[in-house]
């Protein structure tokens, strides 16, 4: 039995010691916890931890297997995302106890705060006293037992699992209903209470999903393929794409969900040109060897940086939106080109981890497929706040794509139209986000870079907050960014263009006098020329999503949401997925990435520079008044740089 005195050592040091003791099979007593945050975060050994006092936020969070006892109270997010193990709290728990648990028994003898069990997947959260507001909010599965009163809006948007209430049931939440308690269920609940010595006498009422809201009444039909560029013609309002949109709405009677991003013309990097006349420089077949394109991300707080052979990454796209074959092809291509892949929503699958040399794992509000093991397996961790295609909204995965395998991985019921939460259960402000970032760092021993993905909306404020909240870097996504599924109007009209986003982001960092937090820009980056322009503007690099999908065979029909992708990319149907040739497409994507590299190197070399980071705003001009206004670059449509394509072709 070891004792750690938190009056003497920091929580970070304590967690390191607890992990070391756990590996040796030794139990640990924690003295003087004094409600500090993150105690016992990231434990993956079956260690027994006794906390003599109160613990703060995220006690025993992001863990798998420990047994934790707390003599006093706990703060927000008790046992956050716990995979297995036990937590017993003698006092009260603050808001969102048992958030996103994937297993485990979590017992609070006192009262519990608001939104208990939010987005929980499996396991049992048990409260000996009273619960509070929105108990079981958006829970996907598992069991929530409240011996006392439930509080108001119990089971708000519950998707799966059961809530048992021994006391007074307050108002029922949206899509929740009362159901009969089967005798065997009652026996199980009573046995659980007896095992954990939670006193109770009386009977339980049960609250479950009412089945009114898990599926859209009608879903988008598969329609004739109309290439996306038809929708981008400036000249006519009534084009084939508009007609298609109206026809689909005539069938489904609501907003239309589709794939891709904004199709209407927006100011973009193509409205900029290089000032210098690069056509005068002779093409050089060895150009890649002559300039330094290497890039590094994530050392701001001493984590092991993500090293990239060029300043580009694969943009986050989920296994779910994309087929497993496509995810594997992207991962392989990223390894062949020595850059970094990204899991997207829904978890890091082993096939991707194995194929990618480096991979970032994303955490979204639903915590789908999220666990401490995914964090440990990844090279970087990314908190998704929003994305350029649909800033402020959550992901959508239509029922056709929510297969048994996807559902199991994500911890949700199969066959629902999955509408992921648009916000994080434990981040309701910049102040909460500080603590969340710390938790992720604690769980990984401060070794992994932690980034944030931001859709471009109020970029100035958001980037300042990202800097203050201690992120290593920002992935900034403009409204040209694509998605597997979002409402058409949101795609076209919500957010700000990629070009405006990068300018606002850099202005915000200047205003703070901040340095050392790189911005990776995404949203409509087509090639190495766009990449060079983004970097010249001040971005650290780019992320490539849509372009890599197109390189791997996408025909841009915009029907990713339907689930019957004719080329096997945006589908989970084995019949369609069989059409996707992983080997061939991974090489196609790789060759495209090498073309990006070659273009980027050519631009750098043609300027006479040795490093990609020698590019600067001084090298750019604007070709349109609008782009000049956005970027404050000189308006110079006569610039010769826009003939660059000829120079490097």
């Amino acid at each position, binding site marked *: 039995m070891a004792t750690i005195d938190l009056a003497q050592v920091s929580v970070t040091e304590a967690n390191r010691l607890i992990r070391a003791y756990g590996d040796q099979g030794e139990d640990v007593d924690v003295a003087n916890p004094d409600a500090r945050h993150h105690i016992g975060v990231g434990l993956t050994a079956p260690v027994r931890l006794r906390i003599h006092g109160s613990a703060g936020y995220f006690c025993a969070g992001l863990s798998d297997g420990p047994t934790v006892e707390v003599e006093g109270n706990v*703060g927000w997010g008790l046992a956050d995302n716990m995979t297995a193990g036990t937590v017993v709290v003698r006092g009260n728990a603050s808001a969102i106890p048992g958030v996103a648990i994937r297993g485990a028994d979590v017992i609070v003898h006192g009262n519990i705060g608001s939104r208990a069990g939010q987005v929980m997947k499996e396991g049992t959260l048990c409260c000996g006293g009273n619960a509070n507001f929105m108990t079981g909010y958006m829970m996907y599965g598992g069991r929530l037992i409240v011996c006392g009163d439930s509080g108001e809006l119990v089971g708000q948007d519950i998707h799966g699992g059961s809530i048992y209430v021994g006391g007074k049931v307050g108002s029922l939440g949206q899509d929740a209903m009362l159901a009969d308690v089967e005798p065997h269920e009652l026996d199980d609940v009573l046995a659980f209470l007896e095992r954990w010595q939670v006193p109770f006498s009386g009977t339980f009422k049960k609250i479950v999903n009412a089945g009114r809201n898990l599926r859209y009444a009608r879903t988008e039909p598969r329609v004739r393929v109309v290439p996306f560029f038809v929708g981008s013609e400036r000249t006519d309002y009534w084009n084939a794409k508009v007609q298609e949109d109206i026809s689909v709405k005539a069938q489904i009677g609501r907003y239309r969900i589709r794939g891709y991003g904004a199709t209407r013309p927006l100011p973009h990097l193509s409205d900029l040109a290089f000032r210098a006349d690069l056509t005068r420089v002779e093409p050089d077949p060895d150009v890649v060897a002559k300039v330094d394109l290497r890039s590094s991300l994530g050392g701001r707080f001493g984590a092991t940086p993500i090293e990239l052979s060029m300043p580009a990454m694969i943009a986050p796209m989920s296994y779910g939106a994309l087929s497993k074959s496509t995810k594997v092809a992207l991962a392989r291509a990223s390894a062949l080109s020595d850059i970094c892949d990204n899991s997207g929503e829904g978890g890091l699958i082993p096939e991707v981890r194995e194929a990618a040399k480096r991979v970032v794992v994303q955490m979204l509000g639903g915590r789908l497929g999220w666990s401490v093991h995914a964090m440990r397996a990844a090279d970087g961790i990314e908190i998704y706040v929003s994305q350029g295609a649909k800033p402020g909204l959550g992901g959508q995965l239509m029922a056709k794509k929510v297969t048994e395998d996807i559902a199991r991985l994500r911890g949700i019921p199969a066959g629902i139209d999955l509408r992921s939460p648009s916000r994080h259960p434990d981040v309701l402000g*910049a102040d909460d986000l500080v603590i969340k970032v710390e938790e992720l760092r604690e769980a990984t021993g401060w070794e992994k870079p932690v980034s944030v993905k931001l859709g471009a909306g109020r970029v100035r404020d958001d980037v300042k907050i990202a800097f203050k909240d201690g992120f290593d870097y920002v992935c900034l996504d403009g409204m040209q960014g694509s998605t597997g599924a979002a409402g058409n109007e949101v795609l076209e009209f919500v957010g700000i263009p990629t070009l405006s986003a990068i300018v606002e982001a850099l202005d915000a960092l200047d205003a703070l006098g901040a340095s050392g937090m790189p911005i990776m820009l995404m949203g409509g980056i087509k090639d190495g020329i766009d990449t060079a322009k983004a970097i010249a503007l001040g971005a650290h690099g780019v992320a490539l999503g849509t372009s890599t999908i197109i390189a791997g065979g996408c025909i841009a029909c915009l029907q990713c949401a339907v689930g019957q992708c004719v080329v096997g990319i945006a589908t989970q149907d084995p019949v369609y997925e069989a059409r996707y040739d992983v080997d061939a497409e991974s090489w196609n994507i790789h060759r495209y990435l090498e073309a990006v590299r070659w273009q980027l190197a050519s631009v750098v070399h043609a300027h006479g520079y040795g490093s990609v980071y020698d590019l600067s705003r001084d090298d750019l001009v604007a070709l349109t008044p609008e782009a000049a206004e956005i970027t404050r670059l000189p308006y110079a449509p006569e610039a010769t740089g826009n003939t660059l394509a000829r120079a490097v072709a």
Partner: protein
Amino acid sequence: MCGIAGILYKDGLRHELGRDLITMLDGCQHRGPDSTGFALYHGSAATAGDGGRSDLRLRFFVGEGDEAQSTVADIRARFAGLGAEIVEEEVAGTTARFLVRFDGDLQQLSYAMEHEAKLASIGESLDIIKDVGSAHDVDDAYGIAGFDGTHGIGHVRLATESAVSPEAGHPFWATGFSDIAIVHNGQITNYYKMRRRLEKRGFEFHTDNDSELIAVYLADKLAQGAQLEEALAQSIQDLDGTFSFLVSTKDEIGYAKDRLAAKPMVLYEDGDIVAVASEEVSLNKLFPGRALETTEPAPGTYRTWRKAA
């Protein structure tokens, strides 16, 4: 976006208020590293004659160096013009504190003085001190630990939308009213609507911070004769958004929490004190090594405590 803390000593006597608030705010400084502020209630200063008002404490933001000197001179002249007698004055940090004897209309005094320099607070008991930096930084500049008092509230701020500057920090004084201060964690989403309503009735606002609105809103209710509890009950109906806030008057502190329970708040009470903070870690800092019996106020609730007379 921020952390809040407040403490009231039930015996009504002066305790080590500054030190206790520093301790609590230091405990939640992670929630707001940009600026830190204190609303300290010293107890009333000397009374001028029978039935008269106690001397008023006024603290102004005056800047530094020459700017501070000329602003202080302007303030003195304006006081003289309004018939306010300066009893004491002191420059500290980027502020100047005055103790004045004045029997006229307080709202007129405060609006007039605002034209000379930005006011942090006016009160018979209240003194608001706020500046950029941590609780310990502000203590170093203003000697907060040396302040004793009967109750007080404090705030650490992470600026999200408005600027990082001393006057944009909390606590907010209810401009035009004496001895009322608030600290707030959250966001008032019907800010402009509520502000326009109050402006139409002649109230002035001196920042674009939504939290100033809460102070003026509550002070207006109190001026109309409402008890603090009633004003808080009404605020939960009238204010939209996410909020956990603390309010303090000459004799009371209170809290209100929004109906969505989006922002945290933890409460500790024993026979001697009431302490409220965003996080238990702040409360626990007052009692190291102890597991405290705390409660988390329910959504949509409010409560007040009054010190012994």
